[in-house]
């Protein structure tokens, strides 16, 4: 229901305001040789010109296989990595020109939940302190106020009050992920980066966490940047999807549009390779030979051309630009 409404909003092009906007972002990692005489021998183009917007209260998903640059992109949004080129804007302001207070505000407004809830929580801290730590760092407050905040947060993520006194090892994976979510929410952020938030969890727990995340999005009006490799998760969680391959965006569209009308051969291949939900579902056979090439030495022209079943002559020469199929649907392929 909400999905239909936001899709319509997206179709009307940008009624929701963009919280974070990435404009032609690039991240190159240098490769050096030698100890004393360091010399540059090459670059890994981890992210190579990616643009997208995350709108208020929406979920933007990045999908792709390992090495496609989705995690590096997320790290740039978190300002853990600085882009080599390109501009990232937060509420319209260029993030590279932030003043000190602006940077602090940004860091408080953008939080993260990681894949592995076993390594992202400090085993020596009580859950209550873990959840309140970001809040107390940013807004010093009295004991009573802190306790009230903790109660609300624990309640919102479905944990009992008493559990604030426990240590992380006393919880199961799903509950730990709830703790990580409560910590991310404590500062009432505008955006939460979710890096594979359910892939380390058991099947029956995944649905709990996905439903919780969707419910919290409605309640807090927070936006998500979801990094995932499972298309079913992406379809359930997101409003907008960007498909990445070897550092480039190959297709971008609202979720419904993307699944109804996948256009890039790579997107089609990903959908064909995704596992069926019923034994009677027969997918279009789409054999993608070979593996993802090394980003150290990506193929010329369209990076996907050596594996593409629809490859043409110009694909190995020309870089395809992102082109609009419709006002909301962009694809980078010479077929269009």
């Amino acid at each position, binding site marked *: 229901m909400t999905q239909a409404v936001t899709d319509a909003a997206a179709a009307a092009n940008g009624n929701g305001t963009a919280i974070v906007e990435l404009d032609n972002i690039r991240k190159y990692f240098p490769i050096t040789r030698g100890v004393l005489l360091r010399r540059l021998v090459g670059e890994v183009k981890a992210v190579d010109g990616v643009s997208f917007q995350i709108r208020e209260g929406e979920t933007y998903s990045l999908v792709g296989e390992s090495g496609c640059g989705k995690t590096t992109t997320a790290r740039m949004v978190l300002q853990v990595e600085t882009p080599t080129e390109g501009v990232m804007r937060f509420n319209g302001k260029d993030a590279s020109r932030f003043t000190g207070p602006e940077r602090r505000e940004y860091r408080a407004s953008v939080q993260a939940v990681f894949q592995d809830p076993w390594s992202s929580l400090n085993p020596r801290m009580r859950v209550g302190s873990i959840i309140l730590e970001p809040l107390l760092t940013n807004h010093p407050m009295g004991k009573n106020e802190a306790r009230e905040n903790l109660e609300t947060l624990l309640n919102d993520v479905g944990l009992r009050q008493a559990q604030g006194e426990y240590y992380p090892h006393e919880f199961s994976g799903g509950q730990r992920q709830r703790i990580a979510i409560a910590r991310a929410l404590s500062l009432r952020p505008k955006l939460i980066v979710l890096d594979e938030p359910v892939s380390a969890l058991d*099947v029956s727990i995944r649905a709990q966490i996905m439903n919780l995340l969707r419910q919290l999005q409605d309640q807090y009006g927070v936006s998500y940047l979801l990094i995932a490799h499972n298309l079913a998760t992406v*379809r359930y969680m997101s409003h907008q999807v960007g498909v990445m391959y070897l550092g480039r965006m190959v297709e971008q569209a609202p979720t419904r549009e993307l699944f109804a009308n996948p256009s890039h051969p790579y997107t089609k291949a990903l959908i064909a390779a*995704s596992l069926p939900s019923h034994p009677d579902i027969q997918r279009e056979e789409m054999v993608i030979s070979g593996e993802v090439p090394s980003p150290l030495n990506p193929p010329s022209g369209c990076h996907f051309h050596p594996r593409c079943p629809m490859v043409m002559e110009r694909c190995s020469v020309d870089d395809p630009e992102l082109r609009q199929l419709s006002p909301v649907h962009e694809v980078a392929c010479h077929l269009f």
Partner: protein
Amino acid sequence: MATAATQPILEVKDLRTYFHTRTGVVKAVDGVNFELFPGETLGVVGESGSGKSMTSLSIMGLVPQPAGRIEDGSQILYKGENLLEKSPAEMRQIRGKEICMILQDPMTSLNPVYTVGNQVIETLRQNDDDQRSTSLKERAIELLSKVKIPAPDSRFTNFPHQMSGGMRQRVVGAIAMAGAPNVLIADEATTSLDATIQYQYLALLKELQQDTGMAIIFITHDFGIVAKMCDRVAVMYAGRVAEIADVRELFNNPQHPYTEALMRSVPNVDEDVDFLYSIEGQPPALDNLPPGCSFADRCPYVFDRCYDEFPPAVAAGDRHIATCWRLAPEFANQEAR
């Protein structure tokens, strides 16, 4: 596909694998029954701690020692002979030759200091009569090309770290195929692979199965793999088989509340889902199982009897068995409520 007339190649009867620890007995596998026919693919689905991996280790005779023990009365019949009565020497003849296993992480199942060719030859040397080194090398390269490793001649001298995850898993596949096994156990074999690579690997396994007629057991947590690959499915929960049926029957007509709930809680690539059903709560601790049904606490249909007594395995259709009180004849009317 199996026909009723053929003998099962593998039969697991009342398998109980317990871990005797200082704090108590952990019932990792607690009374598992299933049959596997030649050429058939059986999926064993369950969450972590459901006992699916321990079932496969029990079949291979690799239960962690000394805490783990397969209890008396358990039977694992391979071609009619009980594997649990075999000596270690006899088991070595079966393991890796007649029954093989592919594990989740190819980086840990391959030895990093030997070339992949070496590791394939090592297995061939155990199994083959022809021990001349030239023919061993020829056979190894043949195996590598059988699992579709491009340029097997030059890949033969690669170390595992020089290969990608998908390629490494193919090498593990080649090693498993070296003994021309009758039963292949794939324990989360494609979980660590990327989507398009997983797709290729599953297609490869199907092809190898068609060529050799081996039976495959897929240990997985993913119903998608079951839907794509399996003929028959066993759903495990807390060390027991909750439900076992042919794949279409299970998807169209799930009888155990756990199976039903699991299927409704998986998001779908093929259609929009408005709201996912989610099973509240956690699976029970295996060292302190309740006397009744282990799913009772999370079950939407629970009634008194479920807490008191473990439910019987009831036939719910053709080759379809579910372990649930709702299906027991004396409770047929309970469901009408």
